[in-house]
């Protein structure tokens, strides 16, 4: 009763280098569009991060790709398959980590991994997986008694049992302490090196910044940005951040010819908006020199993905 792990070529019309193709995807809940004309492509072997504020349509998009929901219109191909109509052929080839839960509270990590191993034609050894995610010592403790981080790591291990070509990780490190988060990051980097395609959503922009090859920012079901984290951060040269050892006079800064707006970020940090970044730098350093102020830091463009995200969506990402 196992599903064959090979896909008939007739079902795979997409070029082999595309793991996921989404075109004009629309999904409505009681008439209201949650995903509204979304399009993007994920290459094989790529780590792709989907970011957006709550209610942006991230989880709906992922769940359509996983085969849980049917699109209202548009085309979706996952490993060359339609996830809704060919879900039986797709399931053995993907690994899924839900945003929360999904595990029997009264079962142990060992039991869960043994159970899931029985579902797949060529599973990874449960013992190796327990070692990989660092759950060997709690392998016989029931899920409900594990810490939040341990529970997430078991969910991650379960996504890997079937040796998937494609991993869906919906907020994989939420609830982890910094140490567990770092361990998980290096695991994810390791999966990437092994050529597994990964679609990730996260609340931690640092996570996307560190792990993702490309980042898609969506809001209200629309794609609003799609680029590498570096490109996204350097994109906006009209944004200059300056730090000084003492507080600056905001009114004086505003009077500089090339400055359009000044915002205090606290602790001696100021964000300046400009249409002419080159001129602004000259004016700013001259002004500082004339007033005897030492500028300790000067940055053109955004410092973090978090700032880009805030600017693009006008929203905090955290729940």
């Amino acid at each position, binding site marked *: 009763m196992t599903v064959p792990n090979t896909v008939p070529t007739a079902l795979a019309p997409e070029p082999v280098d595309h793991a996921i193709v989404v075109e004009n995807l629309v999904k409505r809940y009681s008439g209201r569009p949650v995903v509204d004309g979304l399009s993007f492509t994920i290459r094989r072997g790529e780590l792709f991060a989907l970011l957006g504020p709550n209610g942006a349509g991230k989880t709906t998009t992922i769940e359509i790709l996983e085969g849980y929901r049917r699109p209202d219109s548009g085309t979706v191909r996952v490993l060359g398959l339609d996830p809704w109509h060919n879900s039986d052929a797709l399931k053995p080839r993907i690994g899924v980590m839900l945003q929360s839960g*999904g595990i029997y509270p009264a079962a142990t990590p060992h039991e869960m991994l043994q159970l899931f191993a029985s579902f797949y034609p060529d599973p990874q050894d449960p013992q190796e997986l327990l070692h990989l995610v660092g759950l060997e010592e709690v392998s016989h403790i029931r899920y409900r008694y594990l810490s939040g981080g341990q529970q997430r790591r078991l969910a991650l291990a379960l996504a890997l049992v079937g040796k998937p070509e494609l991993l869906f990780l919906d907020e994989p490190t939420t609830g982890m302490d910094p140490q567990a988060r770092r361990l998980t990051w290096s695991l994810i980097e390791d999966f990437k090196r092994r050529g597994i395609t990964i679609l990730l959503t996260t609340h931690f922009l640092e996570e996307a910044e560190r792990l993702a090859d490309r980042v898609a920012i969506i809001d209200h079901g629309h794609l609003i940005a799609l680029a590498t984290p570096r490109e996204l951060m350097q994109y906006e040269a009209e944004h200059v951040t300056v730090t000084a050892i003492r507080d600056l006079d905001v009114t004086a800064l505003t009077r500089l010819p090339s400055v359009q707006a000044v915002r205090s970020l606290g602790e001696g940090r100021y964000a300046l908006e400009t249409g002419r970044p080159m001129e602004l730098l000259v004016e700013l350093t001259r002004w500082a020199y004339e007033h005897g102020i030492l500028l300790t830091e000067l940055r053109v463009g955004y410092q973090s993905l978090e700032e880009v995200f805030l600017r693009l969506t006008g929203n905090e990402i955290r729940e």
Partner: protein
Amino acid sequence: MRALIAQTGMELRLTLRSGEGLLVTLVIPPALLVFFAALRIAPSGYDRPIDFLLPSMLALAVMSIGLVSLGIRTAYERHYGVLKRLGATPLGRGRLLGAKILAVLTIEVVQALILVLVGVSFGWRPSGSIVLAFLTMLMGTATFASLGLFIAGTFRAETTLALANGLYLLLILLGGIAWPVERLPGPLAIIGLALPSNALASALRQTLAPSPGWPVAQLGALLLWTLLILALARRTFRWE
């Protein structure tokens, strides 16, 4: 096949691991049997109380595992996203349901063995048609497992907990388990007569009687109940 067996094993382990599940499936039916038999509480018309009580408690065993244990466990699995997560594996919904039914049938064999042993100790001797009784138990399992799964897939976990236990108690009192429905006062007798627990218990009494016959009417009633519940479940059941 490997997946089905592994999933069935997990279902069994989880059933036995829950204290409430053990209590309701393996403790309450034999305990009630011992209690009523020891007190010799049984309606007239039966030579020995055990001839009324054993079929009743076999029916109660089916209700305990199908309605209460399976229903509540499945409702919490839905609540915790386990049904959803399993849906993304190659196991599939068909084999998941298959595993649940196999686990229920396995527990029923254990329940029936315990009840028959208790019955024998109170003077019950095998009579009637074991084959017919077995078929009746299967039909009853279909009815009560459908009812448990319908409630689990339709209502919240907390509601399922209350509803399954409430129905269980109601059926014990009014549904021909603790007392024959014909002896209930007035309109209660009519209500009791229509309940599936009464159909199951009375069918088991008929099949285990010294001259057994096909309990056609009761099996028909159970089938109708099952179809009704499945029709409702088709409209309302949610996996997440």
